[in-house]
């Protein structure tokens, strides 16, 4: 393991994991959802909006508003602001930027929020306006959102590494079983491997239960100094390490790995832990194949061993490898940019032992990862963070 020369996130912590319960369709705006999340942060921390002096926001559906317009909307007066349009990697990026801002004294308390609404026609609108390459070279081919792109990635992964649909199914089924313990999960009925296998095809080899259900919702957390958290009596988690990498491995003809693979040694070196030391793992799961790819790229097994890794582990909350304990996006729902936060917020809850019915026993150290932005043929943005709860 190489040593890290990066500055550790000393005396910076995360606190107040917030999830505004998702709904399939909402007539409210993204601003409404972001507002609910801010309110929950303020209430959860026992502070007033004036105590927030840093604001970091992500949303696909806030229309014309970036973070700055939202400050006036919500009556925030901040001295540090960021709007992060990195899709599924937004939460890791938000955490990294907020933590450094707090560490440098540019902000004392940063609210990191993602919220999206889901109207009956929002999905199509988001698709049509996603990116230039997508508009020019993907959307005209009948691609139903990211489904076609991930179908091609999954198909190639199966051909190259021998993954079977059953292996992806095991991930989805385990997450459903976790979700049944999470009252906020939109999916409320058990899923069997037989149901997974016999589901209708969406974009082969993807079938219904390989795909997330888009929905409305919001997620948030606070980043602040250790002393601030202590003065507010807030349970807080340390940030042991983070990584972020964009547009990696551009020469791979089809995506078989994400940017994590570039920086993974540094992630563990900075954290001073090994993959085995992690008590709980939250991967970005817009499709099971991407979670499987992360098992490899995040160092739990070697490239190509993802299918075997899944076969050899129980991925449920009480299993040998507790994974996506909230149910993940596959069973909780994908609330737009909130999907990026879902795993990070759940990891925070887990290491703070605030996860309630989905709590992994004695969870101390957790990893959360992010992945996003299918600009053309692959996901460009990736990131990961390792968090440690009190006493870790």
């Amino acid at each position, binding site marked *: 393991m190489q040593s890290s020369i990066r500055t550790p996130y000393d005396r910076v912590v995360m606190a107040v994991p917030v999830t505004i319960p998702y709904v399939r369709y909402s007539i409210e705006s993204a601003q409404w959802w972001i507002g609910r999340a801010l309110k929950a942060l303020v209430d959860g921390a026992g502070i007033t909006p004036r105590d927030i002096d840093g604001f970091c926001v992500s949303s696909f559906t806030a229309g014309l508003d970036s973070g700055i317009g939202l400050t006036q909307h919500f009556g925030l007066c901040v001295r540090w602001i960021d709007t992060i349009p990195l899709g599924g990697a937004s939460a890791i990026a938000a955490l990294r930027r907020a933590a450094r801002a707090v560490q440098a004294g540019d902000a004392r308390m940063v609210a990191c929020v993602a919220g999206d609404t889901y109207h009956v026609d929002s999905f199509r609108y988001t698709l049509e306006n996603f990116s230039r390459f997508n*508009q020019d070279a993907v959307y*005209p*081919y*009948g*691609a139903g959102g990211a489904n076609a792109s991930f179908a091609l990635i999954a198909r*190639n992964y199966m051909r190259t590494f021998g993954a079977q649909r059953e292996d992806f199914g095991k991930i989805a089924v385990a997450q459903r079983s976790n979700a049944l313990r999470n009252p906020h999960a939109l999916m409320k009925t058990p899923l069997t491997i037989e149901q997974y296998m016999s589901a209708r095809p969406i*974009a082969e080899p993807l079938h219904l239960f390989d795909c997330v259900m888009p929905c409305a919702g919001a997620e948030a957390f606070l980043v602040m100094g250790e002393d601030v958290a202590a003065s507010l009596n807030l349970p807080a988690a340390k940030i042991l390490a983070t990584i972020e990498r964009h547009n990696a491995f551009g020469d791979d003809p089809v995506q078989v790995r994400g940017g994590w693979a570039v920086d993974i040694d540094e992630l563990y070196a900075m954290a001073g832990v090994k993959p085995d030391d992690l008590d709980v793992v939250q991967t970005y799961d817009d499709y099971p194949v991407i979670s499987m790819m992360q098992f490899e790229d995040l160092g739990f097994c070697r490239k190509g061993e993802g299918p075997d890794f899944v076969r050899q582990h129980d991925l449920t909350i009480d299993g040998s490898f507790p994974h996506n304990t909230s149910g993940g996006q596959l069973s909780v729902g994908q609330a737009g940019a909130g999907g990026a936060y879902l795993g990070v917020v759940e990891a925070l809850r887990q290491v703070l032992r605030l996860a309630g019915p989905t709590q992994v026993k004695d969870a101390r150290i957790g990893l959360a990862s992010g992945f996003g932005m299918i600009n053309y043929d692959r996901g460009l943005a990736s990131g990961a963070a390792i968090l440690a709860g009190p006493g870790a």
Partner: protein
Amino acid sequence: MIEPIAKPRRKNPLLRTRLPTSPPRARSRASHGFTRAAAEGRFMLQRCGACATFCYPARDACPSCLSADLVFTDAPRRGTLLCGTMLHVPADVHFRERAPWRVGLVAMECGPTVVAHLHADCEEGQPVVMSLQLDKSGQAVAFAHPERETPNMADDRQWREMTAEPKFRRVLVTNGRSIVGQETVAALKAAGASIVFVGIAEPWKPFRGEDALRALEGVEIVPLDIGDEKSVADLAADIGGKVDILVNTTEHVRAGGLLDRQGTSIVRDEIDQSYLGFVHLAQAFGPAMRMRGSDGVNSAAAWVNILSVYALANWPVFGAYSASQAACLSLSHSLRAELRPGGIKVVNVFTGPLDIEWFQTVPPPKVAPRVVASSIVSALKRGLEDVFVGDVAEDIRQRLAANPKAVERELGT
């Protein structure tokens, strides 16, 4: 392997006609380099002038060296299909009603990876040959074909969406008196058109080739004088709902420009026959065609204009004629835009002087009517939009691209 498509049965008049829907149209400006290539049936990619890297999708800077010198260049068509997927639940209406729809990722031998529509005979891991096509939105898309000819290849469902294949379609050729018209009828019949209606003005007047035309099976002579608004409207009332391809073979060629003519009667004739004739046809047949762009195997598919290449640059020896052709060209762009909601292609076939009586005094090379006819059929089968037939047309096209002012001066001497 593709099952051959069956000849469509007579349409049930009680059923609603499915309305056309468009695939997504939005494109960046740079991406219209592909539109230009697709319109002419070329396969072009951007290539960096500084480091020779081919790239895709369309960019404004080279991803290898950041040079802005990206030029659309004819590119090698070969690639390998890395993986494919069958889309069962596409997001937009157009593809949803055509599902399942197959697309794939193609690694081009020249470098880039291209998302493409797939011919059904393309296999993963096998070589494919790429083309750029205009889809029903009129915009360019990449299409992957199997490397070698396969049985019933042109009957592929997805390929047929990209073309105006004449097989099993019903065609109106507007002027059967001209040799070009007669050759076009024969070529379309040979290409599998189920019926060709042939317009004849003043049918009581005999014409050369009449017996041969009448002897062709699946050819129906209809009265049509396109300079006469009522004649055109009458014919449209009769057959307008079953014209899938319209080929405007109007031919009204007279020599001369401005100063050697007295008055405007000849010019007026030229305008009446070429320009107003086009207007009459468009107004009578266009709306029904636009409604029938999604009407099954024999949906309305294309409108073909035969234009003089001197529509693009005036040749004063035939100066007024050139101007009437320029007017028709301009009008064709309006028609193209107006037919787009129906997914109907407007094909402009540009020719140099034809080897016909009206160009008797013009020296060779001249274009044989049979070549015009075969170019029309080929354009329909390949789904092209701009076609240049013969050496003169190609010469003018290239010279215009190089220096339009030089063309003007040189044609004017």
